């Protein structure tokens, strides 16, 4: 087992553990922070799989922006930061079964398909190479994405305003 592999396994363990805590913690703010850990660990995995640019984006967008948003949202909605008795819905047993099924099913699928393959990491995803691919091959998608972001922005504004004017 090489060093990258060992690091990857450690990061994986961290990611899974923190993910479980993120969805399971009764402390909402803790949960948000465990999410940061998970996302960070995944960013580490990206680095190990030569996707350097994505790792940075992951850290910037997720850890930097999304989680902050989440925490703000928690605060703005005055969500109880302490432990909450009815933290999960009645749907929980079904959710657990489905989560487990999803994991097992996907794992079985990938094991069936890719158990002999190895990643060699010959072609790193640097900013230059990704940008090249992006603007050579995926221009339409990229342009559409820009409209999506604008629309989402407006949508978010409209939605939040509609709630306020509802009173």
């Amino acid at each position, binding site marked *: 087992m090489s060093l990258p592999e060992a690091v990857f396994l450690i990061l994986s363990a961290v990611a899974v553990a923190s993910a479980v805590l993120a969805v399971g913690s009764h402390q909402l703010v803790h949960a948000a922070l465990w999410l940061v850990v998970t996302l960070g660990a995944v960013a580490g995995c990206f680095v190990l799989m030569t996707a350097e640019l994505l790792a940075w984006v992951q850290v910037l967008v997720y850890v930097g922006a999304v989680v902050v948003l989440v925490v703000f949202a928690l605060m703005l909605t005055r969500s109880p930061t302490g432990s909450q008795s009815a933290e999960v*819905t009645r*749907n929980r047993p079904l*959710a657990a079964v*489905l989560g487990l*099924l*999803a994991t097992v*099913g996907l794992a079985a699928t990938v094991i069936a398909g890719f158990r002999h393959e190895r990643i060699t990491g010959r072609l790193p995803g640097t900013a230059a190479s990704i940008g090249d691919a992006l603007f050579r091959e995926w221009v339409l998608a990229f342009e559409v994405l820009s409209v999506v972001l604008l629309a989402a922005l407006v949508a978010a504004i409209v939605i939040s305003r509609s709630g306020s004017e509802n009173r």
Partner: protein
Amino acid sequence: MIRRWPYVALTAVVAVAVAIWAIPELDQRAFFGYVPTNATPTMLPSLSLDTRVLPDSAKVMLLAAGVTLLVQVYSTAYMGKDRRYRSYALLIVLFLVAMIAVVATDNLFVLLIGWEVMGVCSYLLIGHWWEQPQSRAGAMKALVVTRFGDLGLLVAIVVIGQTYGTYSITGAWVGAADQGQQHGTAIGLLVLLAVVGKSAQVPLQTWLPDAMPGPTPITALIHAATMVAAGVYVFARLLPLYGNDTTVMTALAVVSGVTMLLAALFALVQHDLKRALAWSTVSQLAYMFAAIAAGAADVGISHLVSHGAYKALLFLGCGVVMHAVGTSALSAMGGLRTTLPATFWTMTIGFAALAGIIPTVGFFTKDRVLESIHVATHGETPLPGGVAWALLVVAYVTVFVTAAYAMRLWMLTFLGLPSKQHVEPPSMTWPLVALGVACLALSIGEPLDLDTAALSTLVALAGIAFAWWRQDADLPGPVQRPLAAELGLDHPITRLIPAGTIGVARVADAADREGIDVYPRGGAVLAGLVSSAVRALQTGRVQVYASVIAVGAFVVVLVGVIAR
């Protein structure tokens, strides 16, 4: 009174027309020697107005027209005060027309139409007094039973049409003559079924006595001269299509033998004059069939004509008696000899003819029947010799019984002490006289076979003597009771079969209401349940929806993987 005469006139016109038409045909070629030449085959049904009147047809037509005219005259008195006289009289005319159609036509469908129209007319006439329960029941029974028999004729026409490619009777004859009698057994037995029903032979005999609640002139018309006789006539008419078939002839012989004796015995024990005469009719019809079975259809037709005359006379006379006494029960009669003299004398002739006493026409024609059966025992006809012998014996026994019951009825009706005074309307006695004369006149020129005549007269006299000896006493109990109950033969037809059918029908109805609907109802229930289930998921809880999506994704993945 006046408004009744138009119907008589109408009948008379028809009768005269028939006479003008039929009388010249009386002397034509013999009934069965005739070979027609022009037959045009058709596949699809075609009615044609073609007629083929042969001497025997002419006789039957004249009989029918004559009796109908007399009945119509008679009815002006008998039914004169009836509220529904008009429909009654018109139905009689329709009846006559139908009978003529049956007799004269050359087209099987016209024959069938006439045949069935007669059935319906008889149904309506039997049920003329539909306020009475027994009229309704008798009418319905007559209709259903005869229509059951009619199926035979219907299917026989199907078979004839298919076999010979024509619906012309003459055409079929030609076919049968050219190609031999094909499907003779099937056609013969089917026609036999039809005539057994129409002519009230065993085992479909029971409708006829139950038809007696109808007006008596109708009884005379239907049960003497027309409808029941039509059975004999049609069987004879179609004989060329199956006359050589041993099975058919044997079956016919068996039916006629059993019927003639049984019906005569039933007549012997009746306590009701009209019902006794009805059984007598059944018995006499069997004679005619016996003659046909013996291969002498013309003899059968002769007996038909003679029977038509004297039985019409007897029934009409019976009507006068009932008109006078108010009932047809023999116990209420007696001593009418003096109070109804004209009726007495004419009915005496009638009874004599029934019993076969010389010089009435009944004597001659019955003898010819006996003689023809005797001839058949020589084994030269399709009828097996043994069967012919048995039939001959039964026929002679029946002669005895017939004479006995004729004597008994005569005695019970007319002899004894006179009761109160009665009237005989002239329009009722006139037809009686006419028929009485006919009973004697028709015997003019009839041939006579001395051996048979001697034997039959002997047997008949023995029967008369027997009746005289018993007087009005019943037969010994063990014989009397089952015979009076008509051996329970009626039971299956009036009780078992209807009850069984109704029972099955109730089951079918219940199944139809509740059972067959299982699939739509079950489907509706299932649809309701599924609908509720689907809608029950719409709780408004988003995570349930998301779970449904997740579960659904699993399911469709499974479908995809399994399909792969």
